[in-house]
């Protein structure tokens, strides 16, 4: 029996069972039942993906279930990579959701911010908090709707890469957008900002869907068929203009789902506001489908294109990486920071895809293959560590009700396991060895630096763009390190900066298990990326202008590039670090003659004791960077000094407000929204509320279409 069919069968059956359970089961049983069924859906995806990557193929046509014709599904290695990725994220998120949606947590609400600001650390006893949490808050993420939609969401996500015709893809894409929108809005009663985020997300995702729809419809019309096989066959006969039009449209559409700049505005809003396991699913799994769409249509169906496509993707990728990481490095909301970091990582993937496009157009298959492999591997790595980090942020949120780094801290002692797991995730996200993010960034850099050593002198475009790309990747890596040092160091270490952080307790076992699964995936990818060599080679086989054997050689412990002199061994580096650390620790203990380590109060600069308000916060940590990138970020500051009425030299209070707005959003979107609003006002007379008039519009429209068809036919 075909394992892919079995896996997808599990996905569909699990989703149906999960939706039914979520809708019908009693509230007490709901978290466990839907959590486990969601996990089952994920396992089905993992099975199907692994089978496809191992070389199996499968396709199926279900006639008549879609209005325009048959639903067509087919799974090749490229689909398999994304099936595996999404399935694995789902498994971790499903296990995690059991505890996260279960009773006993605190979730951020609008009044939390006010309450927390007033309370001093330690003022609120632990018992009080537990009572408060048990009775006070609505468990929005555990609501009937949210629980029923979750399995549907992951199932549609898993089916998108399996879609093999335009109509199937579009229907699944829309279903995915709708179900995710419902999940983003799960906590809309708790916070006003959720509604805002939902609105932005809905608008942007639909604009993206329209672009994809237009692109694919133009493509299908010109190619004379809507199945992927027909598109593939007809792509070669398209005129250059049509091909480029299709590419630009689908790039914008899939790019908005991937969160690339400047279409990223929904991402730092929606990802933080969704329940954390949903954030993980969106940020680690769903954005990758944007990348999947781009590769599927650009490199497979269209079969590659001129060099400027690659350059466009490369430029947008560089911009996204830099802008995303800059905003992340100054963000103080933990989940918003992770959201911007997603934009950054998508930017890095796009740099890989774009550079691969440039080299594919120049006929340098070795480099194109390496860069594409780096991009796909980075998508997988990013999914692993971003799942871990969002789940970790969810644990913090559930334990403290806080997302604001400036008020967190001291969790290392209170939530030791979560802290250790997040530390590993942060290491991976900062692209440092021995994390898994380092491996794919290393591959990306190898691809870029070998651009000048091909046969003959490099072309002007390559010679100018590749050094800049290396600079961008390097600056992104540097700022990424700053971002995650801040997120981990300020959020989890030192002493707590607020009362809720001071009384945090470790999360329930299922949440820890979910995080541990994601961490295990990170560890596996970090130590044995060599195992990905063969599957990656199969993924590249899908792309006609890229395929050229395997980009990586399976040479035991070393990661060896093929056709390019370069090698590195993540496993030996990790072992070396481990042995070095252990040896150093043993040596220090021996040389210190076993003297015990004493815990002492820190030096208080002459003061007797330091309190938590004297600690460095996330804002102060990022201040030098804010200042260095002042011209780009344009932070807003206002200071209000209120003197006493008696004398203006005696100051009663000083209020200082500092904010780093998203400048691209502030500059680009208001004119657009203003224009839309004006257009809406202008067209208001057209929609006056009369039902007859609306019916008449429909009637006239239908007649017009019939007449046009008759005339053109």
């Amino acid at each position, binding site marked *: 029996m075909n394992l892919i069919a079995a896996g997808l069968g599990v996905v569909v059956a699990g989703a149906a069972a999960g939706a039914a359970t979520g809708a019908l089961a009693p509230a007490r049983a709901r978290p466990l039942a839907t959590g486990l069924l969601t996990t089952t859906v994920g396992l089905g995806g993992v099975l199907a993906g692994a089978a496809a990557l191992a070389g199996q193929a499968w396709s199926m046509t279900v006639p008549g279930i879609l209005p325009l014709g048959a639903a067509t599904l087919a799974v090749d290695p490229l689909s398999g990579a994304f099936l595996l990725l999404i399935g694995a994220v789902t498994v971790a998120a499903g296990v995690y959701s059991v505890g996260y949606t279960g009773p006993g947590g605190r979730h951020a609400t609008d009044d939390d911010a006010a309450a927390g600001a007033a309370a001093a650390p330690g003022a609120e006893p632990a018992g009080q908090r537990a009572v408060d949490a048990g009775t006070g808050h609505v468990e929005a993420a555990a609501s009937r709707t949210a629980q029923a939609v979750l399995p549907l969401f992951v199932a549609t996500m898993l089916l998108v890469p399996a879609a093999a015709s335009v109509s199937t893809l579009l229907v699944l894409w829309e279903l995915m957008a709708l179900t995710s929108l419902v999940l983003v809005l799960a906590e809309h009663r708790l916070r006003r900002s959720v509604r805002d985020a939902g609105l932005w997300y809905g608008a942007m995702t639909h604009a993206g869907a329209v672009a994809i729809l237009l692109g694919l419809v133009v493509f299908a019309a010109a190619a004379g068929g809507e199945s992927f096989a027909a598109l593939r066959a007809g792509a070669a006969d398209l005129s250059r203009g049509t091909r480029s039009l299709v590419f630009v449209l689908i790039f914008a559409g899939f790019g908005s789902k991937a969160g690339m700049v400047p279409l990223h505005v929904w991402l730092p809003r929606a990802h933080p506001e969704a329940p954390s396991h949903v954030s993980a699913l969106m940020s680690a799994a769903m954005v990758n489908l944007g990348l999947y769409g781009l590769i599927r249509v650009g490199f497979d169906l269209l079969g590659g294109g001129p060099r400027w496509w690659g350059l466009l993707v490369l430029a947008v990728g560089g911009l996204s990486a830099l802008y995303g990481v800059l905003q992340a490095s100054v963000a103080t909301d933990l989940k918003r920071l992770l959201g911007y970091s997603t934009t950054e990582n998508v930017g890095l993937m796009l740099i890989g895809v774009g550079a691969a496009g440039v080299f594919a157009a120049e006929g340098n298959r070795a480099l194109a293959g390496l860069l594409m492999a780096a991009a796909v591997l980075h998508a997988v790595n990013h999914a692993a560590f971003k799942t871990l980090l969002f789940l970790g942020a969810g644990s913090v949120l559930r334990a403290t009700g806080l997302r604001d780094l400036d008020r967190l801290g001291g969790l290392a002692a209170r939530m030791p396991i979560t802290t250790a797991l997040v530390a590993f995730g942060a290491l991976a996200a900062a692209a440092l060895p021995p994390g898994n993010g380092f491996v794919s960034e290393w591959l990306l850099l190898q691809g870029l630096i070998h651009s000048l050593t091909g046969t003959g002198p490099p072309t*002007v475009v390559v*010679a*100018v763009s590749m050094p800049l790309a290396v600079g961008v990747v390097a600056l992104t890596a540097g700022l990424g390190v700053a971002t995650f040092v801040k997120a981990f160091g300020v959020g989890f270490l030192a002493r707590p900066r607020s009362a809720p952080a001071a009384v945090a307790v470790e999360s329930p076992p299922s949440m820890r298990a979910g995080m541990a699964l994601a961490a295990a995936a990170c560890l596996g990818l970090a130590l044995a990326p060599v195992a990905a060599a063969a599957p990656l080679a199969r993924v590249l086989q899908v792309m006609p202008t890229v395929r050229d054997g395997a980009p990586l050689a399976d040479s035991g412990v070393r990661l060896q590039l093929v056709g390019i002199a370069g090698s590195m061994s993540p496993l030996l580096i990790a072992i070396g670090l481990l042995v070095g650390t252990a040896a150093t620790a043993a040596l220090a203990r021996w040389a210190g003659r076993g003297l015990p380590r004493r815990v002492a109060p820190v030096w208080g600069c002459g003061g007797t004791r330091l309190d938590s308000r004297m600690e460095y916060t996330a804002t102060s940590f990022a201040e030098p960077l804010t200042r260095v990138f002042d011209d780009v970020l344009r932070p807003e500051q206002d200071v209000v000094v209120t003197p006493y009425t008696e004398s203006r030299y005696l100051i009663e209070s000083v209020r200082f407000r500092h904010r780093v707005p998203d400048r691209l959003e502030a500059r680009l979107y208001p004119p657009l929204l203003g224009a839309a609003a004006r257009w809406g006002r202008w067209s208001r007379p057209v929609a006056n509320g009369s039902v007859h008039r609306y019916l008449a519009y429909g009637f006239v429209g239908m007649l017009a279409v019939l007449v046009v068809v008759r005339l053109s036919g």
Partner: protein
Amino acid sequence: MDHSIGLRPPVSETVYVQTLNLICGALLLAAVLILWRRELAAIVRLLVVQGVLLAALAALLGAREGSSELYAVAAGVLALKAVVLPAVLRRVLRDTGEVRETEPLVNVAASLLAGALLTLLAYAVSRPLVALAPSPATQALPVALAVMFLGFFVLVTRRRALSQVVGFLLMDNGITATAFLATSGVPLIVELGVSLDLLLVVLVLQVLTARMRLTFGRTDLDELRELRD
């Protein structure tokens, strides 16, 4: 610096290429440092270095071609760019008493990054020129073009009148280097004419600076806006 002068023609190929590359690299380095430094005195010193390098370039080409005319050009360039013009600039510096370019219109870090982009641009636009007649000398054309661009950039973004002169001279150095590299040396008479023009321009600017200082007390060129009304 110009150790190649004593070599007999034809200079051995590798030594010629290496010296040429070294001189061009140093020319670019000096131009970048002019963009970086704020002290006007240091900038004038860097111009001297560039003058010496240009003379060395002319001499190297002379040694390569075995032409005595190029040696004369080298001597002329050395005298003008490494001695006379810097002396004029130093005098202006002494008279105005301005020590540093305090507030360029674009901050230094940003202008360095702009310099990076300009260099890449110079490379991109000079490719067709290089492709016309590939040789070690024309290979180095982007460097000369980059020096020219950097000079123009200094001209656009600096406030002090003296910095403007520096930008102008940097541009001229770029043009001279382009001429040397592209044509393997220019006729003596052309070089002579250009040099005289240059000297004249600098002298005019010196007078202008002195007048401005008398009128406004400073040499911030933005003050000239007041003349409009």
